């Protein structure tokens, strides 16, 4: 069981989630104590050990929650800078119907094919009161590269640099592209992909558009979570 916990700890998906780390540490200490007192110890241990074990199971199950923040979770406020130096804070966006945060990359081949249509899509929904921010959390891509890439593609949205992938860690983002739609009260309303294909001609499900249409119409988002393959975010701590 210690081995399993060690593996979980090594798993980069859990790193940065301090509460989980604390729980894991507690489990370590309890297990260590149990294993040390296994041979000797008073009769009381016969009662305490099973109770401790049950406590462990409880903590264990609650620790293995999905690392990514799920629809329904509340996001902490954050401030990040665009490549032109302007600061953007989530709490300033209270008047938006929603803030769409898109983890982006200058190089990932799962992101680039969207460049042919993301600009028009964003402009259409900006008119409807939606805010769009791209976030670059790749430690391998500099602000200069981000700036050049954004200008080349004429993006109508800022591309914020997530230094040390702080926001990516808070949201549990792992790939590009990966989208979180955050409501005015900072609740996550949608988490997942832009559409079911990076190639326009193969798209059959415009998941982000559908979620935004639901939000604008005041409906509950019908499909709150979607998944897709993508390039892993190149975290500063390595992964």
């Amino acid at each position, binding site marked *: 069981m210690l*081995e*399993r916990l060690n*593996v979980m700890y*090594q*798993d*980069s*998906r859990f790193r940065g989630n301090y509460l989980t780390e604390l729980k894991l540490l507690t489990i370590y200490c309890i297990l260590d104590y149990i294993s040390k007192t296994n041979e000797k110890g008073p009769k009381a241990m016969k009662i305490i050990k099973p109770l401790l074990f049950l406590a462990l199971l409880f903590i264990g199950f609650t620790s*293995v929650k*999905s*690392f*990514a923040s799920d629809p329904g979770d509340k996001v902490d406020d954050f401030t990040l800078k665009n490549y032109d130096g302007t600061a953007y804070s989530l709490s300033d966006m209270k008047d938006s119907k929603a803030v769409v945060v898109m983890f982006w990359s200058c190089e990932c*081949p799962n992101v680039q094919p969207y460049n042919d249509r993301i600009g028009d899509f964003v402009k259409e929904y900006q008119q409807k009161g939606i805010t769009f921010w791209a976030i670059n959390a790749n430690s391998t891509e500099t602000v200069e590269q981000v700036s050049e890439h954004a200008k080349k593609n004429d993006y109508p949205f800022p591309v914020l640099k997530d230094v040390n992938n702080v926001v990516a860690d808070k949201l*549990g*983002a*792992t*790939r590009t592209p*990966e989208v979180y739609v955050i409501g005015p009260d900072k609740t996550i309303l949608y988490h997942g992909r832009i559409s*079911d294909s990076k190639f326009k001609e193969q798209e059959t499900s415009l998941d982000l558009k559908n979620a935004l249409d639901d939000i604008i119409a005041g409906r509950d988002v019908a499909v709150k979570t*979607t*998944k*897709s*393959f*993508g*390039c*892993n*975010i*190149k*975290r500063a701590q*390595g*992964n």
Partner: protein
Amino acid sequence: MALAVILALAAINGYSQDIKPLENTNDLEAIKDGAKGSVLLVNFWASWCKPCVSEFPELVKLYKNYKDKGFQLVFISLDDATDIDKAVKPFLEKQGVDFTTYYNKFAKPEDLIDYIDKNWQGAIPSTYIYDKSGTMQAGFLGTKNYEQFESEISKYLN
């Protein structure tokens, strides 16, 4: 004539660097079942994914060193179907892959992703390790080197 055809077919079957499509969870189940009794490492990669490409030779080396010690390795490529012939096969050949690998042909990526791990959002490279009874014991995102992979699988080899 018939003999020539049979021999030709046998020769083709004998050429084991082949890449097979995975279309549904039954295909995955079959792979896992086939690996029971061995430690299984499943690696999700794509030819366009730089970190995947950089750790690929480490995994090939691991397979070659441990395949006779109760270890199986399954590569699953997430390249587009149209790139299998022009990008994936040449890459596999260059890497010295002389064993069967697979590529994703699921209609919906969620079905593949969720079958493997509900906590996985689809980022690659992603590696999962199953013990000899077929139970998943470890999963990690991101590049690892030979020593790290070796240390992981060693835990379950005996």
